């Protein structure tokens, strides 16, 4: 599934990176500690978080993530949006909380990677 497919199936709204939704999603990662995301996310992952700071775009770029989903109705900071457009990182938003959204994605076959 691509980021576009997932956005469509789960009613996510796209806030940035509209031209970068074609990437194939390799799995998911959910965390709000950016140091943890740097350590454990994998290339092509969709990242679910409630952090809205511009650093999320830098982390997604560095780790070559497929996109970022902000949950609980949170909106990206203005600086985050601008940076995401510059870097071509999709930012999607959902009114659902992280647990619920991750559960629904998992049910549809988007899984987290096992640690080893």
């Amino acid at each position, binding site marked *: 599934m691509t980021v576009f497919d997932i956005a469509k199936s789960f009613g996510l709204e796209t806030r940035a990176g509209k031209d970068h939704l074609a990437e194939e999603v390799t799995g998911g990662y959910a965390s*709000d*500690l*950016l*140091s943890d*995301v*740097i350590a454990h996310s994998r290339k092509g992952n969709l990242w679910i978080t409630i*952090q*809205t*700071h*511009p*650093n999320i775009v*830098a*982390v997604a770029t560095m780790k070559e993530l497929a996109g970022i989903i902000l949950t609980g109705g949170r909106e990206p*900071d203005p600086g985050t949006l601008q940076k995401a457009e510059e870097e071509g990182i999709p930012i999607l938003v959902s009114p659902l909380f992280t647990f619920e959204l991750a559960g629904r994605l998992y049910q549809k076959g988007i899984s987290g990677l096992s640690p080893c």
Partner: protein
Amino acid sequence: MLRTFQADLHIHSCLSPCGDEAMRPQAIVHQALAMGLDMIAICDHNSAENVTAFVSAGSERGLTVLPGMEITSKEEIHLLALFDRPEECLALQELVYQNLPGENVEEVFGSQTVVNERDEALGTNRKMLIGATLLPLERIISFVNSLRGVTIASHIDRQAFSIVGQLGFIPEGILLDGLEISRRTSKEEAKKRFHSYQRFSFVRFSDAHHLGDVGKDFTYFLLEKTTSEEVKLALHHREGRGVVE
């Protein structure tokens, strides 16, 4: 004339839910002097309601107490703000209170006691001081700067509530004055691990929550006098001021 001052600028009082009830003005000032400190700062979580009492208690005994606060940003980063006058700290408190949801649950988080300079309890703060504000980190920093205060990112070597833990790395162009390293990390380790942040001054303070920890960690500053303005100069190595390694 410049001289070296021994400073512990991160101490919690009994107002912080996690701060021991014995962390009151006379007791802390006594302990700070016994530990040989020239200057301390009271930095409670998201509140400054005890700073005036501490400043008075300190001035009676010849100890400089800087009014301060440890603010929790929206990203759940702990940030120290230090000032010269209680009014500046209380202006910050006003902004923080407008953006601090929730009520404290004393049984879970601990009591939040407001005291006077004689160590007498005046009442209890009911806000959830342990919680996070709704304020983005950079907004707090620019507000503190507009009040000419000092900003130091707390315990950056810890995973929890630190700028490095929460944000992965320190954003470019951020207007912080310094970085605090906790006692968990040695000077040498810190130098290696935070090599890329050498543009900032590193400081060590106790983050004391109990009397026995006051002054256990401290930083020597080369200053003309014990003010936050001088500390700011020192953190940027301006006008001959500095942090003594």
